[in-house]
Structures are given as C-alpha cells and as structure tokens.
C-alpha cells in the first residue's frame, strides 16, 4: 500500500559507507499490539497462548518467539506483541474474541512505533553511548528485553540471537532517534539498509 | 566594636594586623534568653540583627548546629531580584531589595551587593507571555522591570547565542536592572557582626535536638550543649525546617530537596550580568573572583545529603554550552549541593504556629538568599509583636488550609 509511511521513511541515509561498523535496518509495518491482562489468571494466559501459538513470557524482561510472532514482556501485566505486517487487526480481533469478558486490554500501536535493528562490529559501543542500560552480554543476554533510555528518549531493547539489537522506538521521536544515531555512529561508520 | 574602613585597614597594617578584634564573640550559652533563633544562616542572623536593632530585644541567642552561614547561605548562586509575579511576593522581595541598597553601610560590612542586573530569558511563546505579564505587574507595583527583545538581550550579553535556528532560541527576556548578586558569606558575617555588636549571643556547633513545649507554649530548646530556656523560639532552619518542626510535633508543607550549583575556574571578566533561563534550565553569573557561578536544577527526590545526582549537572551544562558556546572549553572546578525547603506554592512561610511563642520562617526553597534582609526584617517584627508584619501576613501557614496560595511556580520556575 503506497499510503503507508513508516516513521523513518524520509531519513536520508548517509552516502554509501565502505567501512560501516554500525548497520541500521528498519523492520517496517510490523503489527504492534499492546496487551494487558493478569498473568496469574490461567483463563487469560491460556486464551492468549491459543491465539498466538506461544505462551506469554511472564519472567521480567523476557521474550518469546514463534514464527513471525514475538512477545516482549513489558511489565507484570503488559506485553508487546509483534506480529506480521497487516495481521494486527486480525490478531486483535482474535484476542478480543478469545478474551471476551475478561479484564484485559488490547491496543493497536502499529503506527505509533517502529522496529529498528542495530548490528555491526561496533554496535556495542554505540549502545554504550546511547543508553544507560548495561547492554553487555552478561547482563543483556540473548532474548532479553528491557525498556530503558535511549539518549534523551526511551526504547524497548531486545537482544537478538545474532548479537544485534532490536529496538522499538516511538514514532514522534524517530527523527530525533536517527539524528542521535547518525551522530553517535559517525566515528564507526553507519550504513542504513 | 571598631568601625571598619580603609583608614582602619591602614592603621592595622602598621601593626601587622595583630590588633584586630573578633568580628563576633563565641560565648557560652546563657541559661535562658528572651528569644532563641534556631539557625544561623543569613535569615536567622538578619532576624537577630533587626530584633535587636529595631525592636530593642537584645537578650537573644542564635544557635547554629554548624558554622554561621554554612547552610544554604553558603551554597547559593546569590541572585538578588524582586521581579516576582504576585503582589504579595513581589512586595516582600522588593522590601528586601530596598534593604540591600545601603546594607553594607548599615552593617559597616561590605556585602558586595553588585546591582549588575538580572535577566530571565524566554524561549517559547508562553515564556514570553509570562514575561510580559510579570513585567507589567512589576511595573505597576513600582518594581524595576522591562521586557527585552532578542537584540536587546544581545546588547547586554554580547556572548549569548542569539541564533534563532537553535532548539530553544532566545526570544526575549525580562530584565531587572536593579537586581544583581552579593557576596553570600559577607551577608551572613555582616549580620552576625552587627547582631553580636548589639549583644546577641551567636552560639555555633550547637544543634537543637528538641523544642520543649509545655502547655502549648514553648519554654526552650534542648541542644547538644544542654537545655537553653526561651520565651520565644524562632526557627529559621531552611532545609531542616521539617526536622525541627517535628521536634514540636508540627508538620510543615515542605519537602527538602538537593539543589546543586557549580563554579568554573576563575577567568577574566566575560559576563557582566546575571542570566537565567528556566526553560532550558541554566543560571549563570560571574563572581568577583572570576569563576562562573552556575545553578543547576533541583533533584526530584527528598535529600538532606547536600549533594545531588550527576545527570542534573549534565543537563545544566549542556544548556549552558547551548546558550554560551564559548563556555564549552571552560572547566568546572567544583560542584556542590544545598538542601532547599520547597513549598507547594514556591513561596515562603513566615508564621506563628499553634504552639505559643514558636515561630517559623522557612520554605524559601530555591530562592531565599535575595530575601535575606527583608526576611529577617519582617520576621523580627512577627516575633517581636507576636503578630505578622503586614508584608508577611499573606505568608502564614494557614494558607494551606484556606487555599490562599500564592503560586509563584508558573512565572518563576525554579525561583532563584
């Protein structure tokens, strides 16, 4: 659909960088759904697992993944569901159906935020410049998800299996995010793919 | 007590300065006093001075847990101005400003009050509306005030970044030419010497640990130097007011927070006035010694540690470098913190309490240095007459029950 524009659609990527040690890739138009509910309530967790095909992670700062669906723990009663592009409406409807009558909330955030992957040999240094959170592998292990600061804004940071970072950033801050990123990665070389 | 003057300096220099007298005595506390002032900061010492000078009460002790003037008086950015928004506040602060003029002569102690002007910058349209409002109110109250546009700001402070392309450009400012800065220690010492000269006992290293109340009336204070009796006890303990009030079973509408400040290394004169910005959060002036004196923001948490968090300083210095890009290569020499007693309406409490003979003067928060002489003056009246000075009337503690708050937040932000 041409009418769709991601928050980062207009950024001007630095001209071809030969020695890019930080690589940014946006994963645009994913479905982002915010889910609230009581994890102690089995009716809730069961219903959600059924719809999503994967159990809700209930450990703090953890995530779960199944196919194109990914779930981030945000707080004891809140999760971010990342689903395939264009499926969010269906998933939302399915969840509403499955959870009818329960104290839950499902909220579409797909346009309010975007998923950005940061990788490259010096991405750890970049993260050290950008967030007060300790992104060292000993603290932010693979699969772990934290909500924390990113420069003067916030981000949800997920450590991916390949050592890269997935960041969920808010739409209105995305220009600032990129300004920061371009600036902080200047000494490393940034490529946008 | 010998008068200070250039001539006395000369005379003493011939005698190798061996004959100078003490600026104040260090007496042992008497058994009892007519009035005990708890807290030997600027406000407490000024209260003692004016009680003795204007109300003839000289059987007074100022008890100070540390050294005189060592509380917030020792650690503030010394900005003096009176351009507050509301009538009640601006009249009180302007009374103080009147006293600043001539204070050195009155005390025979040079407090180095430097009326170099104070500028409050505006960075957005609402800032400018607020500035217009405040300046108009000041003007009609007879307080020196003007609105400056960006060019006029630049003329007074040529080094300011007046680019309109920056994140929060300078759109204008309010300007009080009669405001300025003073040498904070000298203010405390001047009042101390003046009070001592009038017979007031200044007792240092004496911490009040309890306020003794019998049948609803105060009878004295318990201290680490023993019990001291008093007919009246006037507490001027700034950040520690909540702690002192609790000794008398009273709660106050105060929270004590760290407020930090810092200085650069001394440099040659580069900024001749006081520049303040609430929006980007930076305050700067240059002391006579040459250091840039910079006020940081308030730490959000309650804290009595006289220190705050580093990110508050970082925030302030990024704002300073934005406003004054040439200061970026200047270096921070020292940073410190005070404990400010913030009040819900950013105005002080000058008040009797439900305990007879117990008075509080507190809640000056981030901005009481400028009020030092005025605060002491009206508080002395309140204590002497057991009745608020007319200018202090709006600042009694029951305004938090009646709802008659005087909200200086909107216009003053951090009200240095």
């Amino acid at each position, binding site marked *: 659909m041409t009418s769709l524009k991601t928050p980062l659609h207009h950024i001007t990527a630095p001209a071809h960088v030969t020695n890019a040690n930080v690589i940014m890739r946006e994963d645009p138009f994913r479905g982002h759904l915010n889910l609230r509910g009581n994890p102690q309530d089995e009716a809730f967790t069961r219903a959600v697992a059924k719809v999503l095909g994967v159990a809700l992670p209930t450990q703090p700062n953890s995530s779960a993944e199944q196919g194109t669906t990914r779930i981030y723990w945000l707080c004891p009663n809140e999760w971010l569901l990342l689903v395939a592009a264009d499926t969010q409406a269906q998933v939302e409807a399915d969840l509403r159906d499955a959870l009818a009558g329960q104290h839950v909330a499902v909220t579409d955030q797909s346009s309010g935020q975007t998923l950005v992957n940061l990788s490259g040999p010096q991405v750890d240094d970049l993260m050290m410049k950008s967030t007060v959170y300790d992104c060292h592998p000993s603290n932010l292990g693979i699969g772990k998800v934290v909500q924390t600061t990113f420069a003067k804004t916030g981000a949800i940071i997920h450590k991916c299996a390949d050592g890269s970072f997935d960041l969920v950033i808010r739409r209105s801050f995305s220009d600032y995010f990129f300004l*920061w990123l371009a600036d902080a990665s200047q000494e490393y070389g940034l490529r946008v793919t | 007590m010998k008068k200070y003057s250039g001539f006395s300096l000369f005379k003493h220099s011939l005698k190798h300065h061996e004959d100078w007298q003490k600026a104040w005595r260090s007496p042992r506390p008497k058994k009892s006093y007519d009035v005990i002032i708890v807290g030997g900061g600027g406000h407490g010492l000024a209260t003692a001075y004016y009680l003795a000078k204007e109300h003839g009460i000289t059987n007074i002790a100022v008890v100070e847990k540390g050294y005189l003037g060592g509380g917030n008086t020792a650690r503030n950015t010394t900005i003096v101005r009176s351009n507050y928004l509301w009538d009640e506040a601006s009249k009180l602060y302007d009374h103080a400003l009147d006293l600043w003029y001539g204070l050195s002569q009155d005390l025979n102690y040079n407090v180095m009050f430097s009326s170099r002007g104070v500028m409050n910058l505006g960075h957005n349209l609402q800032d400018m509306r607020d500035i217009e409002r405040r*300046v108009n109110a000041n003007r009609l109250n007879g307080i020196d005030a003007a609105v400056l546009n960006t060019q006029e700001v630049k003329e007074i402070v040529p080094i300011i970044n007046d680019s309109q392309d920056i994140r929060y450009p300078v759109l204008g400012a309010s300007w009080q030419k009669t405001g300025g800065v003073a040498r904070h220690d000298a203010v405390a010492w001047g009042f101390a010497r003046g009070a001592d000269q009038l017979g007031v006992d200044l007792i240092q290293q004496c911490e009040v640990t309890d306020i003794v109340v019998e049948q609803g009336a105060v009878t004295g204070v318990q201290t680490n130097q023993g019990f001291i009796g008093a007919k009246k006890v006037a507490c001027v303990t700034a950040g520690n007011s909540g702690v002192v009030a609790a000794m008398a079973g009273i709660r106050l509408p105060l929270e004590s927070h760290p407020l930090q400040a810092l200085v650069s*290394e001394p*440099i040659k004169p580069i900024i001749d006035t006081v520049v303040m910005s609430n929006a980007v959060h930076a305050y700067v002036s240059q002391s006579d010694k*040459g250091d840039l004196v910079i006020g940081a923001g308030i730490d959000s948490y309650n804290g009595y*540690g006289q220190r705050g968090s580093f990110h508050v300083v970082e925030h302030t210095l990024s704002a300073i470098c934005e406003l004054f890009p040439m200061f970026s290569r200047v270096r921070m020499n020292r940073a410190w913190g005070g404990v400010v007693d913030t009040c819900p309406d950013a105005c002080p409490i000058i008040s009797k309490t439900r305990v007879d003979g117990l008075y509080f003067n507190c809640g000056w928060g981030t901005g009481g240095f400028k009020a030092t002489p005025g605060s002491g003056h009206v508080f002395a009246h309140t204590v002497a007459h057991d009745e608020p000075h007319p200018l202090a009337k709006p600042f009694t503690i029951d305004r938090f029950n009646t*709802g008659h708050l005087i909200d200086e937040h909107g216009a003053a932000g951090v009200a240095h």
Partner: protein
Amino acid sequence: MSQHNRLAQGGRIDRNQPLSFTWNGKQYQGYQGDTLASAMLANGIKVVGRSFKYSRARGIFGHGAEEANALMQLGVGKETIPNPRATQIELFDGLTASATNGWPNADFDLMEWVGKIGGKMMPPGFYYKTFMWPEKMWMTYEKFIRKAAGYGKASLEADPDTYDKMNRHCDVMIVGAGPAGLAAALEAGRTGKRVILADEQNEFGGSLLASGQTINDQPAVEWAEAAAAELAAMENVICLPRTTVFGYYDHNFLGALERRTDHQGMTAQSGTRQRIHRIRAHQVVLATGAIERPLVFANNDLPGVMLSGSVATYVNRYGVVPGNRCVVMTTNDSGYQTALDIVAAGRTVVAIVDVRHNPEGRLVDAAREAGITVKPGHAIIEAKGNKQVTDAMVAPIDIEGDKVTGQPMSMSCDLIAVAGGWSPVVHLSCHTGSRPQWNDEVAAFVPGPTLQQQHLAGAIDGEYSTAGALTAGAQMGAKAAASEVHNQYDCGDESICPAQAMYLVPHTKPVSRAPKQFVDFQNDVTAAGIELANREGFESIEHVKRYTAMGFGTDQGKTGNINGMAITAKNLGKTIAETGTTIFRPAYTPVTFGAIGGRDIGELLDPARHTAMHSWHLDNGALFENVGQWKRPWYYPKAGESMQQTLNRECMAVRRSVGMVDASTLGKIDIQGKDAREFLNRVYTNAFSKLAPGKCRYGLMLKEDGMVFDDGVTACLGDNHFLMTTTTGGAAGVMSWLEMWLQTEWPELEVYLTSVTDHWATCSFSGPNARKVLEKLCDDVDLSAEAFKFMDWREGTVAGIKARIFRISFTGELAYEVNVPANQGLHMWQQIMAAGEEFDITPYGTETMHVLRAEKGYIIVGQDTDGSLTPQDCGMHWVVGKNKEFSFLGKRSFTRPDTSRDDRKHLVGLKPTDPTVVIPEGSQIVADPTQPIPMDMLGHVTSSYWSECLGHGIALGTVKAGHHKTGDTVYFPLADGRVLAAEICSPVFYDPKGERHHD
C-alpha cells in the same frame, strides 16, 4: 635557548622526537613524552605566572594534579583554554602557551609593586572592611577588582570541538594505575570479571614511572610496562589512560573524563576531543596515591622552590634537573631519595636539611655515603631571592619543630626541594559524604567510613612502601572480584626512619611579621592570613577557608589545605583531627563544561517530536512553534504576507469555507476495562456514567488543590472502552497522574491505560464546508447533521482508510477530526487537502487555532490558566458534576475559605473600546488607570488577538470578581505609556448560541 636543564639520558622522553612550542611568544624545544612543565623546566623557564592578589612571581612547583602555580593560557583564538596546568599538559608540536596574569608580562610585572606596597593593606577579607563609601562607588571598585581577579581568558568564539559520553558498567572499577592500582587490576582481571582501570596520566605506572626501585627483581618501570601490557591484552579489562575520575557519586557511580586528543593538538582532527565515561561499578578500588605536602616557610613561593617528589619525577621521568644547586628540606626519608637522584644526575646537593634531630637508616646512610651534607634538626626558615631562589636560610630548630634555636645560615642555591610528608588522595572517597579521618601514625587524613562498595589500596590508605602498595592492591583487587590473591611482591629493602609531622616552619620573627609564609599559592593565603582569620573569630575550618579563600583555587588546596588546617589547629589549641578538613567535592581536577554537556547540545539538546505530517508542513512553508517537545506548525505564510495577514487568511478560510490543522500532538490515552467510567468520574470534574458509545464529552481535570490542570475530550468507544485526549504539553503528565491513581489508590478498579498518542494521526478540519469535504472521502458513514451530531464519533472509511471520525470542534465551526493510524497520516492529510481543494481548504497553524478558539471563549490550559484557577473561576461551572457519588479529584478544595470566595479572579472576555486595538497579552488590568504606582491590579490579559471575522480585537483575561463586572470598563496601562481600555464581556465572542458547530 637550549634545553640546558635536560639530562643527556634517562627518562621516558624520546630525544629523537623534538617538539617545538611557544611560551609567552618565544619558541622553545622539548621532546615527545614531555609535559609542558618538564619542557619549560628543561629550558630553564622560571617564572610561569603571577599570583592573583600580590602579583608575586611564581614558578612550577609540582608535577601533576597538585600544581597550583603553573596555570596556562593554552592556545589562541577559538581553541584557547584558560587555566590548564603546565604539569598536566602533554607537549605536542606547535603548542602555544602564555601566562594568565602579569602586566606587561609575567616575568616583568608592574602589578608586583602594587602587591608589594599595597599588600600590607590586603589581609584576608580586606574588601569586607572597605570600599563602602560612597555607596554608589562600589560598582566602580568592583570593576577594578574583577579585572584584577581571574586567571585565563575564555574564548569569545564557539568551541570548535565536540565531546561525547559512554555509559559503562563493571564489576570492579579501579581508580589509579600506580603499583596499587595495577596490582589490583591484575588480580581482578584474571578472574574474568569486568574491570575498568583508569589513570589520569598518559601512561600507567603512577609513581613507578619515576622510581629507581625494583619489583620482584625487575626495574619498577619495566614491571609497570609489563603489567600494563598484560592488562591491555585482557578482553575483560578496559584500560583508560589519560582518564581522570573526577567524581564519585552515590551508589558507586563514577564520572571519568578521558582526554582523547589533547596530547595531539588543541582540537581533535576527527571524532570527539574528550569523552566522559559514566561508570556504574559494583565494587570500587581507590588507588589514587598520595600527594606530597610542602612546608610553609617564609618566601616559600619563590620560583625554584619545588616539591621534592616532583623534582625527583622531573629528573627520573623527564630527564630534567630543575636546578644546579639544590637544598632539600625534608621531614621524612623521601627527601633523601630526591637528593640521591639529583646527585646521580650530576648536580649538586648543597645540603639535606632534615627537621628530624636524629634521622638514621638506609637512605640517610646512602646520602652520607654519597657525600651529601645532612643537617639534622634544621629547617629552611626562609628563601631569599628576587623572582627566583638564590639562597636558603637554614636554622636549627627545637625538637618539636616550633622554634628557631640558633642563628640562621645562608646557603646559596637555585633550587629548594621540600618534602613535608604525604597527603593521601582522599578526594573521591569524600564525594559521597564520607569524612576523612586523621591517622596519627601517618600524620595524614585517610578515607573514613563510607556506604559505598569501596576498597582502598596503597598510598591513599597511608601505605607508602611500594611492596605495601602492591600487596594491598593485590588484596583489594582480589577482594573486589571476590577471589583469592594470586601475585606476591618483593621490592627489596624499603625500611625507613619515622617521619616527623611538620607544617609551619618557625621563623625568627612571629608569623605576623615574618616575610610571607604561603599556605595556598593560588589565592595568596599565608600563615599570617590564617592567624588573622582565627584572631577575628573565624574558627571553624570552613570559616577559615571562606574568609581566606584557602583551597578555593583550581587546585582545590591539594597541597595547601592540610597545612592550613594544621596551622588553624595550632592557633586554636586544637588537634588537627578536631579541626577537621573542609569538604572535598567534585571535580577532582577541573572538567571541561563541553564534556559534561556531551552531545546534548544543538539539535540534540532536547528531542524534537514530529507528527506524521511533518514533512508536508515543511514542504508547505510552515513556521513552527515549540509546544513542549513538539514542533507544531505555527502558521503558513505565503510569499509577501505579514504574520497578521496570514492569520487573517487562515482564520477567514475556516470561518467561510474550510481549514485544517494537524492535531496529532494532542495526548491520547486508550482506556479499557469495566471500571473505566468510574475511573473517569473520579479524575474528571464531570460525569461520564452515561456517556454512550459513539459519543464524546469534554472534561476538566484538577489537581487535589482544586485548580485546573488539564482538559480534553473523551470519546466512548465501547461500553468499557474510552479514548481520552489531553493537551499537547500535558500528555505525559496526565498519563503518569492517571497511572498513579490507578496503581496506588485504586488498584481495585479494572482499568488499563495505554498511551496511543503516537499511533494516531489527527487531521482536524473545520468550517462550513467541512462536511462537503468529508462527503467526498467517506461514503460509509451517514454524515447528515441528524445522524452524526456534534460531539458524536463514528468509525468509517475515509479516503479508503479505516478511520475514527470525531465531530468535535475547537473553532466553533462544523468540524471533524479524522484519526487514522499514523502510518497513513500523511496520506490522509494529502487526501483531505486534495478533496478540499475546490473549497480552498487552507492549512492553519496553532496561532490561527488560538484565535478561532478565543473567538469562542475556549480556554487553553497553561495560557489562560496558571494553576491558580478553579473551574468556577474559569466560568466553567457547567462542567463540574454536582451530584457525582465519588468526591472527584480536587473537589473538596472548592469549599475551602479562599477557593469558595465569590470575588476571586475570574476568566472573562475583554472587548477593546477601540475596536482596532489588540491589547498586548500579559497586560495588567486596572480599574483606575490614574492611580499612582503601586496600582491595584485586577488581573491580566491571558489571550489576545485580532479577530478578522469580527473586525475587532478580542481578549480573554482574569479579572477580580470579573463574573460580576460584565459591562464594566477596565484599563491596561502599557509600558510605553499608552492606556488601553476594554469592556468586560462574555468570553464567547463568536456565535454565542453555538449554532454553527451544531449545524
């Protein structure tokens, strides 16, 4: 001039890499590895500056952070840096430096005579005693005082450099890479724990770099090099040379400044010049060493008087002997080592003057064997010379070191090395409020108890032997890493003879009459000055500091403070422990402002938030207004238009046809749960119990003090589902306010809140043709006035996109707000603009929005309110629920005596008497403009505009008892002398019956 003080060999300099530099306009040479100070000394430069009160000539005194005299003006133009110490500037080719004070120059300073003659009149605090008459003259005196004060000059141009920061986390943070720090790092590093080792010098090794000792039979320097290399190879260890830990903050957080390029030139050729490491450590090992203490004697500030350890450092580390004939004065064995080093360098030691009466042992013997004269029980009571030392006056003293007991003799010399003992670098340990403790055994303050996870190793703890430092370092490194000690150290015989504590050296004259005995060089604080302060009643050490300015300088009293405290103690008959120290604060050494600011300047000062339509606004010439962090279009001027013309055009477009504003910035909170209504009832002044799905309602939010704090429209999306909007600036505050109530007070309410501000883009278009525009784009919603009423909302398809359409109006016209997911916001905006083209649809900004709403008397929270107005004050009784069961937030405050008064300031309309006039916003309102100042003010103008459609100015304002004064004329005395007048009227100027938006 040649480097005539340079040794032919030795030291850690590279004689094959000569570097040239300029000092006070003259060219000199030094070598790679030099500091500016060592290069200046190599060239025989003696006078490096002038003191600031008495303009006395001063020379290099130390070799590192403790240096108080050698403050430089480094570089010129926009690159210049005021006040760095020559001892901490690494030499680079082309460096230029000059003195910060002295007129016409530092070497020949006319001000010296002012100091010499006037100095007597300038004891501490003299300015408090004079300059008072006439009162008006103070500002003139002050001008001269200011000119005389200060050291270097700041540039007048913007800094060409940038700075950045890194957030670091580690298990073990080790500060200082001397023997103790290196040993600690080796232990901690081998455990695999995350370790950071920082040292402010250019290379690791600390005092070892100038030491001739051996460690485990290896020369100390080689051991240090090997240790540094071993650590550099450990992946888990981060080595940060040239990095000063400047502050130790609560909960084991440390700030460190890394100088990345300062050793290469004035500015960074690429990347950032300096970097701040923000370090959160689990455990901290402080191995910051000790600073040598000078001795206070007459004229001890003459160039040529230096710290003994510094002299040794220049000799051993830099291959520079700062003089030919040296007299060493010492209270301990370390002076002997210096003397031996000087002799080994081929220069003369005239004598070692030892204040101890019976020094003996290893080093004393060695000195005697080397043929050096030792004068036990003596002291240098005075230095002689003009601009540089020529003689030392040496006299016998009593065993306590209090009195001169015999005739002074003169020793001709050009260098005096003083060794007064050591002051551990306790600074960092004190930053979090811990007070240092006096330790009699080492006659020094050592760190006191602390709450931080902190360990001490080496000289900072009074452990002054190298083996001791290494062993303690190893222990603490292991302990911090929760492991066992691995390495053992042997440094041979380090036995010493006990030191004698000594601070002020007696003179034949009393302190007040002796030549100046300096305690704090930078602020010209003398022993006599301290005595005077004590005499005048300044007894607390903090008073002494503040009265004399001792320790106020850029060195923060690193060499002077302890002596000053000892002198005070003696004057007051107290012990040093009782006297205590002043408080150590960050920064350990000065830190560049720009580095602390980091990258958060310029565009990055604060995030600028943009809506999905931002690029369109840019493309269409919008000027922007900052609203909170948001960039909102302010107005869209066309070529040649004045701002007022633009506003008139934009306003009339809305009133006559249709205009559109980007309302995406309004806060939006999605509220779900069966108790959502109850929740809304509690947080809003009005009732939401009966709001049906498909309906919207305006609400006011109060703080508990009863004052308006936010407002907005809430739509019922479903029985248990609402969408609340907030003001743009208030969004975050409202969200956390609501969450707070839910989470802390009312957890029993089944409600979930989610901020959806960023998810929805909002195109708000209004005007008589608004419906026609929408009709073109939407065919699945009955848009008729009867079916889709004012304050209704519908779900529908607009321009092919699923949207929420709200029929709400902030302009008083027929209006729709179309909400679509922001990914489609730009598209929707473009489609509406295209559909509206035939109606001349006009984009408008916040300014026109303000005019239009003011014509309708709608308030802007924060502009028309200021936290002191109740809903009643705003004339909004209609939105306050009278019969709600729950006492909504703020309600109780209405009935307080002051809040319930009927003559509070009320928000009213103001119609200028002269219709062409627009009253300036912020004007104060009076009833009687002829009243003399101070005038009685009734209130002020909160909003004021030219209303093009009404053809006159309009304003809103607060007026005392204004609701009872409709029809009264009030006045606005302006700064320019004009007095404007207006009539108090209803705030609703336009379409008072509300027919247009109901249409």
